[in-house]
C-alpha cells in the first residue's frame, strides 16, 4: 500500500509544533499500525532525520501507552482496540492518515506524539487504592461473600488501562470515564467500601485540580474506550459523590 502520513511534530514541551507530511510506498496490510511507524522511523533514521517519538510498550493492548489520535479518533478506526491492535488492513491504498497526540490541557505534550499522563497517576494516588497490607497475610478469598453481579461489574471497571483515550476523544477533555471506572472498581466491593467516602471526594477533587473538563454525557469516551468501560461507571461515581457528601460534609 502507498500511504501519505500527516504527523504532528514537536521538538519538546515548549516548542511550537506542526503537521508534517511523510510518504510510505510499501506498507503491508498485515502490519500493525506501530510496525508501520517503525518502518517510517527506520527510513528517517537512514536519512539522518529525527525519528518520530511515540509511546508504546506491550504492543498487545494491555499497557495503554500507545496514545495516538488517528484520522480524528482516539486509537483510530475500529472499536475496542488500542493503536498497537490496529492493523493497516483497516486503511486503503492511497489513504492520507493524520496522526496527532492526545490533546488536553491536563496531558501536556512532551515530544511529538508523546504526552504526559501523570495527571492520571496523581488522581489514582489521591484515592485509587485500599489501605491494606497484602503481603504475606492474605486471607482466604471466600471469607467475604461477594455477589456475582458485584464481582463481574467491579472486574469490568478494573479492566481500564489508563490509556486516556476517553479524555482525548471527549469534546470537553473530561476524565470522568477513567475516574468513574477507578471509583467503581472499589465502590462495588466490600473491601473498597471502607474508604469509599474519602476516595471519591479526593479523586474527584484531584481530577478537577488537574484541569480536565466537565462531562456533558456525549458518550464519546465509551465508544472510543479500548476496554469498553461503560458510562454506568460515571453515573455510579456521581452517585458516590453525592452519598459521600451527605455522609460527611
Amino acid at each position, binding site marked *: 500500500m502507498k500511504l501519505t502520513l500527516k504527523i504532528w511534530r514537536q521538538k519538546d514541551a515548549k516548542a511550537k509544533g506542526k503537521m508534517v507530511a511523510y510518504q510510505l510506498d510499501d506498507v503491508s496490510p498485515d502490519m500493525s499500525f506501530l510496525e508501520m511507524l517503525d518502518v517510517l522511523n527506520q527510513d528517517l533514521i537512514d536519512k539522518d532525520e529525527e525519528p518520530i517519538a511515540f509511546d508504546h510498550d506491550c504492543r498487545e493492548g494491555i499497557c495503554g501507552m500507545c496514545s495516538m489520535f488517528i484520522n*480524528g479518533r482516539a486509537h483510530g478506526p475500529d472499536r475496542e482496540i488500542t493503536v498497537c491492535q490496529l492493523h493497516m488492513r483497516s486503511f486503503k491504498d492511497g489513504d492520507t492518515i493524520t496522526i496527532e497526540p492526545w490533546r488536553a490541557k491536563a496531558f501536556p505534550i512532551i515530544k511529538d506524539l508523546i504526552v504526559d499522563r501523570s495527571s492520571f497517576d496523581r488522581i489514582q494516588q489521591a484515592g485509587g487504592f485500599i489501605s491494606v497490607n497484602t503481603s504475606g497475610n492474605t486471607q482466604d478469598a471466600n471469607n467475604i461473600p461477594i455477589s456475582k453481579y458485584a464481582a463481574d461489574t467491579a472486574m469490568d471497571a478494573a479492566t481500564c488501562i489508563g490509556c486516556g483515550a476517553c479524555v482525548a476523544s471527549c469534546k470537553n477533555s473530561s476524565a470522568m470515564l477513567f475516574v468513574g471506572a477507578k471509583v467503581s472498581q472499589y465502590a462495588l466491593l466490600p473491601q473498597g467500601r471502607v474508604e469509599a467516602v474519602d476516595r471519591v471526594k479526593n479523586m474527584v477533587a484531584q481530577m478537577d485540580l488537574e484541569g480536565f473538563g*466537565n462531562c456533558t*454525557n456525549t458518550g464519546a469516551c465509551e465508544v472510543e474506550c479500548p476496554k469498553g468501560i461503560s458510562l454506568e461507571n460515571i453515573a455510579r461515581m456521581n452517585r458516590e459523590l453525592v452519598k459521600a457528601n451527605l455522609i460527611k460534609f
Partner: protein
Amino acid sequence: MSGFFNSSIGRKYAMALSAFFLIIFLIIHLSVNLTSVFSKDVFNEFSHFMGTNPLIQFAMQPVLIFGVVFHFVMGFILELKNRSARAVKYVKNTGSANSTWMSRNMLLSGGVVLAFLVLHFIDFWIPEMNVKYLQGDMSGLLSDGEGYRYYEELVHKFESPLRVGAYVIAFVLLALHLLHGFTSAFQSIGATMGRRKTVQNIGKAYSILIPLGFIVVALFHHFNH
C-alpha cells in the same frame, strides 16, 4: 455541601436539577396550551387562574425565571470551562464517529431556544405585566368587557406566518436539545444505572411529543382562523 456544588460533578447536578425543573414546566405549559385547541372557555379559565393566582405569580414565576436564567448561565459557564480544557484543537476530529450531533451542539440548540424565549417574553409576558401591573387591570377581560381576552390574544399572535415559522423552528431545536438533554440529566444525577435504555426511550418520547404539541397548537390556530 458547598464543596459539592463547586466540584465538576456538583455543577452537573445543579445543571440537571434546573433542567428537570424546565422539563416539568414544559409539561404544565403544554397542558394549558392544548386546552386552547379544544375549548376557548377552558383555556381562558386556566389562563386567568395562572395569570392572577398569587402563589403562581409571586412564588412560581420568580422561581421559573431564576431556573431558566440559572440553566443557561450555568450552561455557558460550563461550556467555556470545558473549551479551555483543550487549549490546542485537533487538526482532524471526527466527532460524528462517537457522539450525536445533538450532544455536541447543546449550546447552539439552547441558544436558539433562548432567542425564542426572548421573543416569547416580548410577545406575551411583557404585555401581560404591562396590562396587569402597570395599568392595574387584573380583570383579564377584553376591552369591550365581553369575556376574557386570553384566547383572542393567542389567536391574534398566531396570525403572522413569520411568527409561526420562528415558533416551529425554535421547537424543533428544543426537540434536538432535549434528545440529548433528557437522558443526559438523568445520567448526571446517576439515575441511569441499570436502566439506561428505559430512560433513553422515555427521553425520546418526551423530546418529540412535547415540542410537537407546541407546534400543533401554533399551526392549529394559524390555519383555523
